């Protein structure tokens, strides 16, 4: 990067080229329309163009790219899931993340930190052991460690949590990483744009036209688009879209809030998660502690934030790290989580031909960005579910074949 900066300093061309075009005119017809310019939608567009030669694609984004869940999560990437279906899927994503900076030629600040999931009770340690064994079986680095190991890695931690919830051990997942989430959206946008994909920001979808059970077009506030393939990748806004095509889903939307503290000198190398305390925390490359808690307790399709959350979060953060008593919260925000009953996503083909869904991303969407883009691109191009996402199909609910991932949700919901 410094070399690039130096070159730019001596260049006569200012300002630097934009990362992607902003087409003003919407064509009347596209081969494929992607609704949602977040990480997932942009990644799908990128892989559609790169791997499947489908370049006549419009990505429609109602706000600006990365303005939804992509820019609101706490940027943790891990693959220590509980079910083989989940672990395999998220691990494929983690492997893609490792090479993604090079692939997209953009520094994503992908930083492997090691990920602790603390257990505050023998019962919780049992679930962690179950996860560790499943993970090891699939070749994922994951092991149970004792309190001494945790203390050595994170000396600032209070192993007794103020006497309230003593730590019995943890699941340790060395490849656990954090990344700069906005850059993931920008990188995929630039990549897709370079291959001919059109990205239309400020273009809300107002309706979807279905004839004889098949998608034929999309209404936007800028006019009608004829298309036979629509991918909905809008996470927290999915119930708006599925209503347009008359699909029933189990999704309910809850807000999920997060916060950052003022920047501190680097002291926390690892990512620390506690289901018992409903807390996760890591230190960004800017020095801020990025931290979040569990879902808001009732359904709401709104990104408002609350004082209740800030109070609860601070309390639990201090249980774990009393040394942070004088540190201030800098920002607080909310995002939308589209929750499924089994804590797994909903992906793939649907009963409406030509309508593909990428939803149910609840609190676990960011880490899946590359693999969901890749598998959804395959699914749209081939018009059949990719093998990795077959367990996550929407029809699993009427077949009573859920993929129970609650035990691996990063915090208790």
């Amino acid at each position, binding site marked *: 990067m410094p070399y690039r900066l130096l070159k730019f300093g001596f260049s006569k061309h200012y300002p630097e080229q934009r990362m992607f075009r902003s087409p003003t005119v919407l064509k009347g017809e596209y081969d494929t329309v992607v609704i949602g310019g977040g990480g997932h939608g942009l990644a799908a567009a990128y892989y559609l163009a790169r791997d499947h030669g489908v370049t006549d694609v419009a990505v429609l984004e109602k706000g600006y790219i990365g303005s939804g869940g992509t820019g609101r999560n706490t940027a943790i990437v891990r693959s220590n899931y509980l079910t083989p279906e989940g672990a395999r899927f998220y691990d494929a994503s983690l492997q893609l993340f490792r090479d993604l900076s090079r692939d997209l030629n953009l520094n994503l600040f992908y930083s492997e930190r090691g990920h602790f999931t603390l257990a505050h009770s023998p019962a919780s340690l049992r679930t962690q052991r179950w996860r560790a064994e499943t993970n090891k079986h699939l070749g994922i680095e994951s092991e149970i460690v004792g309190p001494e190991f945790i203390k050595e890695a994170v000396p600032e931690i209070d192993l007794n949590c103020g006497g309230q919830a003593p730590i019995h051990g943890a699941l340790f997942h060395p490849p656990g990483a954090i990344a700069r989430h906005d850059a993931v959206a920008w990188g995929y946008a630039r990549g897709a744009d370079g291959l001919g994909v059109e990205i239309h920001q400020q273009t809300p979808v107002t309706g979807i036209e279905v004839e004889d059970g098949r998608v034929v077009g999309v209404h936007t506030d800028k006019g009608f688009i004829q298309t036979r393939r629509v991918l909905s990748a809008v996470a927290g806004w999915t*119930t*708006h879209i*599925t*209503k347009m095509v008359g699909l*029933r*889903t*189990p*999704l*309910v*939307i809850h807000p999920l809030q997060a916060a950052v503290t003022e920047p501190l000198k680097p002291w926390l190398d690892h990512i620390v998660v506690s289901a018992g305390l409903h807390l996760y925390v890591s230190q960004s490359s800017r020095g801020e502690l990025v931290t979040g808690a569990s879902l808001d*307790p*009732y*359904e*709401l*399709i*709104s990104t*408002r934030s609350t004082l*209740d959350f800030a109070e609860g979060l601070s309390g639990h953060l201090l249980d774990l790290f009393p040394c942070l008593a004088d540190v201030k919260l800098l920002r607080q925000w909310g995002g939308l989580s*589209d929750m499924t*009953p089994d804590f797994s996503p909903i992906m793939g083909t649907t009963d409406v031909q030509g309508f593909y869904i990428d939803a149910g991303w609840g609190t676990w969407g960011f880490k899946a960005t590359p693999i969901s883009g890749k598998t959804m691109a395959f699914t749209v191009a081939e018009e059949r579910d990719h093998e990795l996402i077959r367990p996550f199909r929407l029809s699993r*609910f*009427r*077949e*009573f074949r859920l993929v129970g991932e609650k035990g691996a949700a990063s915090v208790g919901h």
Partner: protein
Amino acid sequence: MKILNCPLNGPRPLQEFQFGGEVREMPDPDRVSDEEWADYVFQRSGEPGVKREWWYHIASGTWFIAERNNQTDETLRTYLPGSE
């Protein structure tokens, strides 16, 4: 602080309440098909709009129904089941 109106106890802070999900009619399990039963068990109407929801006032053990807009978070009215 957000206030919810309990039909028995009047306006109380939201922390005293628990959300119980949307009001849904349970079909007769002996008479529906597996598919209809799965629909009842799993599918939800999560789209935006005014919903009828179960709420529970923890302190007094009261279950009641609230009509609430799930986008604006405005509660239009609350009442005890059977008294609408």
